[in-house]
């Protein structure tokens, strides 16, 4: 066996703790919870109910229930009064629109059924996102059906009509405008050409008044904007092209999840990671907390955030020395050798490399620009002319606005798409300043921290109910169209502004006018505007001619930047503020799908916590293992003078020693009971060097001695130590070696000599080969980054219930698809652990993300043990699960080597225990359910069906059109959501299909194939671009 690395899912498994040993052999972490409904044992013994009484009630109950069941249910069927042309019951309609919430931009398709949006998919026509989405975006459809949304505008906490609302605002506003008062619009980044035109018109309508728009990004890239202003004269973010980059060095930039344009960058990144092309990009990541991007890096160097400036300065000097430029001042740091390795690789790929930094410090970004300029990356992999518009907020302008407000000089403040009371640093004292504004108007779709502090609340619609347009990049335009009539009495910001300006036209007309006068006027493809508009509305986007690349002149002052950046503040501890893959900046913290999505790195759900390196945790006496019985320890934390009480500490392998990390976006009330999830870390941030710093060295903590329950899926559904599930190699071995070197076949010794495992069969061959279709899937571990987009997409397609934190703690999460995150370390490192080595395996492990769902085995172990034949194999290779037949013995789950079967412990859709968070408990939340998929009842098994409803629909379309199924037209929910196209689905019997080719490739293997299950899901060996042979 070429691969003798040790793989482990968590510290528990690495250390083989007794509790892990005990739990890993259990499919279900506890017995059937009879106590839950029978009360506790004492109560039961002292009960007055006799056995006879019990039997009487039981008998009566059964009879009553069966009599009730005999009654014919009367179902009503209500047709439309006037049916629209294209909406037919039972037929899905797709609308192209786009998503932008100030953080993520994506071109999407919205699937609607009977007029209800039920699913978000990527728009494959988009040259930016190429059909990819992320978890936040495909979950956003559930936010539309949030029962906590504002149902009408509010004044002083009571609901009013729009007429009353508009009248009172107009009265106050006109008084302010006529006397030349100060009106401020505090918005998130807006790149909509029509909204910007409208705001400009609003300004010019009242020349006597002082009107200004201030852009505020909760997660700011102000430092980068200012650095580009200094370096190139434009306060913009550049466009990157990672697909051309052979060398990628990221210093704290989480470009796969939180960085602007992350979906676009992720797709580009994956296209440069195909070893079959003969080359692969090499990715170096210098970071403090382990990010999604860091977990996918070839070389990950843990380094404190406060040293990022020094890292960049040293990298600058190394390259400057080689290209003959003058060096800058740089402090010496320990990891000099690793910086030089990165520099060496960058220099070897001049013009085909990228250096990125996630820092919000202008000086660091100026140095990064300097490095990219020396490497000649501008014009090849980085484009400033065709720039991104996705962030525009300058922190300095925001803080001066708050100063103006505190001084009482701001008369009117309109807050659009922002929640400053939640996200502003506490030192800015925003709430106090807000109290001094005469007319404060909050535009919000649901109650938040800011709306509780404002008199006027304008209820805004969800983006799926709104009109809009977008201009995320130079020359790239997109439309936003409503896919459902507004559910509540809401009005979008633009419509409000139009009516306050006494304009009769709607925002829809306004957008049309914008497009007609600007985009339509400069094109030649359509003669009539109506034709142009309809085409663009259908496609969802319009691309005008790209700007010509002009020669870039770098004018940044690197030496002053370096002296600023490489200042080192030494402290015992420092803390980094990061964004989680699910919650992001917290715009959608109220979305239960996102809360229940396990974080790709920590695998923790429903919580915010402090992360720490395991050895640091051990030194400080904190627990490093968590489970149903084992809780996390808590601390009282003080950052920049702001204190948090009783927050849990999590030992996170890969966290840089001496650093802490905490996620932003939590601490918001969600669900019917307004439960607050986690704590809000935003207030602890502080301004530094004119921008909001994403880390702080002013941090201290004290253990409280208390503990806290954590819901982690880390060690759930282990595969019984069969670590052959993961296969990886390095690029050299892949290029120069044979298949046996990195992907050997499983040979079993038999009486007739050694045989390939596929030749040994307990059962007769299943007739899937060559008969009709044979559905299969291939998952490229090299392309999978573990982002979880497939998981939420699957939840939305297959009506997977939300179970809540308590159930996740009991290993009862219902996700059909999970992403197993394996840490790995080289055997030598593990050996060293026994000696007095500097580095322990959990200090900087390598990571493999492996999507795992039903493997649809042709010889499925689950099928043979089902006593009622509820799980059977179809001739098309699908392991079918028939819920109405299942009696819930759970034998199948016990016998599944992949642990992918889920048991319905409860009626999640109507048991009041799940009322607070399960969206399908009310009529509004149920609107998101996919009508083609059964909502499973209590007491049955469920699992991935390979999206059989999509397969059946696709086949039916082909049959109706009398043609064969075209490869690629049928795509499972996970495959279509994947931003890196890691998942390929198709017909293995179609010899020209992509999945057939993938299944025959040298990198292809099947998980736990050695037990003879013959799965229909293939995996492709992960190839790392590392020097030492890690295999």
């Amino acid at each position: 066996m070429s691969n003798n690395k040790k793989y482990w899912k968590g510290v528990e498994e690495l250390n083989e703790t007794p509790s892990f040993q005990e739990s890993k052999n259990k499919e279900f972490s506890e017995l059937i919870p009879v106590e839950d409904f029978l009360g506790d044992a004492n109560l039961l013994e002292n009960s007055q109910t006799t056995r006879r009484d019990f039997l009487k009630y039981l008998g009566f109950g059964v009879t009553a229930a069966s009599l009730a069941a005999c009654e014919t249910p009367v179902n009503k069927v209500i047709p439309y009064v006037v049916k629209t042309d294209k909406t037919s019951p039972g037929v899905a309609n797709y609308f192209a629109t786009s998503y932008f919430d100030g953080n993520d931009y994506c071109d999407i398709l919205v699937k609607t059924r009977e007029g209800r949006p039920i699913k978000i998919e990527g728009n494959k026509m988009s040259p930016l996102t190429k059909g990819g989405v992320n978890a936040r975006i495909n979950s956003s459809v559930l936010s539309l059906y949030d029962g906590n949304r504002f149902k009408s505008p509010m004044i002083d906490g009571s609901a009013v009509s729009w007429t009353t609302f508009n009248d009172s605002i107009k009265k106050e506003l006109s008084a302010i405008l006529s006397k030349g008062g100060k009106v401020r619009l505090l918005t998130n980044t807006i790149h909509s050409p029509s909204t910007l035109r409208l705001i400009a018109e609003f300004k010019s309508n009242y020349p006597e008044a002082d009107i200004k728009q201030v852009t505020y990004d909760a997660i700011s890239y102000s430092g980068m904007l200012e650095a580009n202003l200094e370096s190139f004269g434009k306060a913009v973010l550049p466009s990157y092209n990672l697909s051309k980059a052979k060398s990628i060095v990221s210093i704290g930039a989480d470009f796969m999840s939180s960085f602007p344009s992350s979906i676009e960058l992720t797709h580009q990144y994956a296209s440069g990671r195909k070893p079959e092309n003969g080359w692969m990009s090499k990715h170096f990541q210098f970071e403090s907390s382990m990010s999604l991007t860091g977990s996918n890096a070839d070389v990950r160097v843990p380094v404190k955030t406060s040293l990022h400036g020094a890292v960049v300065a040293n990298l600058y000097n190394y390259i400057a020395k080689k290209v003959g430029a003058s060096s800058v001042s740089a402090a010496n740091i320990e990891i000099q050798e690793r910086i030089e390795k990165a520099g060496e690789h960058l220099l070897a790929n001049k013009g085909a490399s990228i250096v990125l930094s996630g820092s919000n410090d202008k000086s660091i970004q100026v140095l990064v620009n300097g490095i990219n300029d020396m490497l000649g990356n501008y014009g090849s992999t980085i484009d400033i002319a065709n720039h991104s518009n996705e962030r525009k907020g300058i922190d300095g302008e925001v803080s001066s606005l708050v100063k103006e407000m505190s001084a009482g000089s701001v008369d009117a403040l309109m807050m659009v798409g922002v929640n400053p009371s939640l996200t502003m640093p506490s030192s800015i004292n925003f709430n106090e300043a807000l109290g001094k504004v005469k007319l404060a108007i909050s535009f919000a779709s649901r109650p938040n921290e800011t709306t509780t502090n404002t008199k006027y609340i304008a209820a805004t619609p969800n983006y799926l109910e709104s009109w809009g347009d977008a201009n995320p990049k130079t020359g790239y335009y997109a439309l936003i169209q409503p896919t459902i009539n507004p559910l509540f009495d809401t009005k979008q910001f633009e419509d409000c502004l139009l009516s306050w300006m006494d304009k009769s036209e709607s925002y829809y007309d306004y957008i049309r006018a914008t497009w007609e006068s600007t985009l339509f006027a400069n094109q030649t493809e359509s003669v009539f505007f109506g034709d142009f508009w309809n085409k663009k509305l259908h496609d969802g986007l319009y691309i005008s001619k790209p700007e010509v690349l002009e020669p870039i002149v770098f004018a940044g002052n690197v030496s002053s930047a370096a002296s600023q950046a490489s200042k080192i503040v030494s402290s015992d501890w420092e803390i980094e503020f990061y964004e989680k893959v699910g919650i992001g900046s917290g715009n959608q913290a109220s979305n239960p799908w996102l809360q229940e999505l396990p974080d790709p790195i920590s695998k923790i759900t429903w919580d915010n916590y402090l992360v720490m390196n395991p050895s640091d945790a051990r030194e400080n006496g904190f627990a490093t293992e968590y489970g149903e019985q084992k809780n996390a320890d808590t601390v009282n934390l003080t950052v920049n003078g702001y204190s948090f009480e009783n927050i849990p500490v999590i030992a996170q392998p890969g966290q840089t020693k001496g650093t802490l990390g905490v996620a932003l976006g939590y601490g918001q009330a969600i669900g019917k009971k307004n439960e607050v999830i986690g704590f809000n870390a935003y207030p602890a941030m502080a301004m530094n060097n004119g921008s909001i710093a994403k880390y702080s060295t002013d941090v201290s903590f004290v253990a409280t001695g208390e503990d806290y329950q954590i819901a982690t899926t880390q060690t759930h559904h282990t595969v019984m130590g069969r670590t052959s599930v993961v296969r990886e190699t390095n690029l050299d071995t892949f290029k120069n070696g044979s298949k046996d070197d990195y992907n050997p076949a499983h040979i079993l010794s038999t009486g007739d000599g050694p045989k390939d495992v596929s030749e040994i069969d307990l059962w007769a061959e299943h007739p899937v080969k060559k008969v009709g279709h044979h559905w299969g899937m291939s998952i490229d571990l090299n392309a999978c980054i573990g982002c979880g987009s497939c998981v939420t997409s699957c939840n939305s397609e297959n009506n997977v219930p939300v179970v809540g934190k308590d159930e996740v703690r009991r290993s009862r999460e219902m996700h059909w698809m999970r992403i197993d995150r394996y840490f790995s370390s080289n055997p030598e490192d593990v050996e060293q652990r026994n000696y007095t080595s500097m580095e322990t395996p959990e200090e900087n492990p390598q990571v493999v993300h492996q999507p795992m769902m039903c493997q649809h085995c042709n010889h499925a172990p689950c099928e043979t043990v089902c006593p009622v034949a509820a799980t059977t194999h179809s001739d098309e290779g699908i392991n079918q699960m028939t819920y109405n037949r299942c009696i819930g013995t759970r034998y199948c789950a016990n016998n599944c080597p992949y642990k992918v079967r889920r048991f319905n412990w409860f009626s999640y859709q109507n048991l009041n225990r799940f009322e607070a968070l399960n969206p399908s408990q009310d009529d509004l939340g149920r609107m998101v359910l996919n009508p083609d998929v059964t909502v499973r009842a209590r007491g049955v098994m469920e699992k991935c069906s390979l999206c059989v409803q999509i397969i059946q629909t696709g086949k039916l379309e082909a049959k109706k059109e009398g043609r064969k199924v075209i490869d690629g037209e049928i795509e499972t929910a996970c495959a279509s959501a994947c931003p890196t196209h890691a998942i390929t689905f198709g017909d293995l019997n179609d010899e020209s299909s992509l999945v057939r080719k993938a299944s025959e490739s040298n990198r292809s293997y099947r998980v736990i194939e050695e037990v003879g299950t013959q799965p229909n899901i293939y995996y492709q060996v992960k190839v790392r671009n590392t020097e030492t042979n890690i295999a």
Partner: protein
Amino acid sequence: MKLLLFTKSKVHFQALFVFLFLFAFSTTKLVAQEDGEKLFKSYCASCHSTGSNQLVGPGLAGVSDKYEREWLYNWIKDSQGLIASGDADAVAIFEEFNKIPMPAQPVNNEQIDAILDFIKASEAAAPAAEVVVAETTSESTSGDGSSDGGLFVVLGLIILFLIVISILRGVSHSIQTVRAEQIGAQNPEERTMLQAFFDWINANKTIVALISIVILSFVAKLGWDAAVDIGIYTGYQPEQPIKFSHKLHAGTNGIDCNYCHSSASFSKSAGIPSPNLCMNCHTYIQEGPQYGKEEIAKIYAALDFDPVTKKYGTNQKPIKWVKVHNLPDHVYFNHSQHVTVGKIACQKCHGPVEEFTVGKQHESLTMGWCIDCHRETKVQMTDNGYYDEIHKRLPEKLKAQYLEDGTITVSELGGIECAKCHY
């Protein structure tokens, strides 16, 4: 069912053939009437009915009695000319119908005669049709009482049986007394009927056991049948908000099923037509043959439509029909698969809907019923590229096995696998 329909239509064709053969040369009148119907449908039916109800123009019942034939020729061929000439009748009609001009029709006098003959013939036929409708309705309502009647019959029989037994017993007792007197024996002991019954049971245990077994098996059978029927609603015929008759629309008027249930050909559900579709005809047809204006008015109410001014209001309310065919939630059924791909006639599952006055569930809709059909039904493979591809992939061995009986059935292509309907 399909076979039955086929033979029926065959009989119909044969009859028509014999009919035509016998009368083709001798009875021109019949041919004229046939033509008259065709002509009426192509030229007149869009604005006129053969009854007395008004569409765009007046109902034509009795028109040949009301006007001179010559006047009718002129009116039909050029009504505007007749009005211009100042004909009093013509002007009166023109005024009465809001000055909507009747377009000149390209027909000759013989054709007009044929049309008028046809109108006359339909007048004679109309009352008969109404009787038929009335009969079927009464039939469908009386069906419910039958089970109660059966119970009374059984009870009556039991009482009769008991009376006969007690009479026979009395007779037998008298005979025995008489006989005892005759032979001078002691009078038989006076015993109650119950005692006698028990004595008889004691004496004939085998017979009692046999009878008990028969009775118990009968009860068990009844119980089993009742249990099996739980959840099966064959014949379910709920009352609907509108007394819509498929017999009238699909049967008498021959409207294609797909006209109203168009989504059956492309969607999962066949769809209940929305009232705006009804208005394609009912804008003009404001009166039905049986319920007059009452039922059609419900469509107008739903759409807030004023039949006089022909204007729509804003107070629209949907019609809440009662669903007749209910499948459990865990069953996926797609109409288009069956209608468009499988080319299955609607009647195969829904029964002779064109004969139903009130919609009802014709088949059991059980899983066994689905599977039976999937086992027998041949896949419509001809001229379908999808099946060509699937067929091409079949190994020779299987091809031979499947085609043993000359057909490939739905189940042979996996049509009875669980996940074809349950997911």
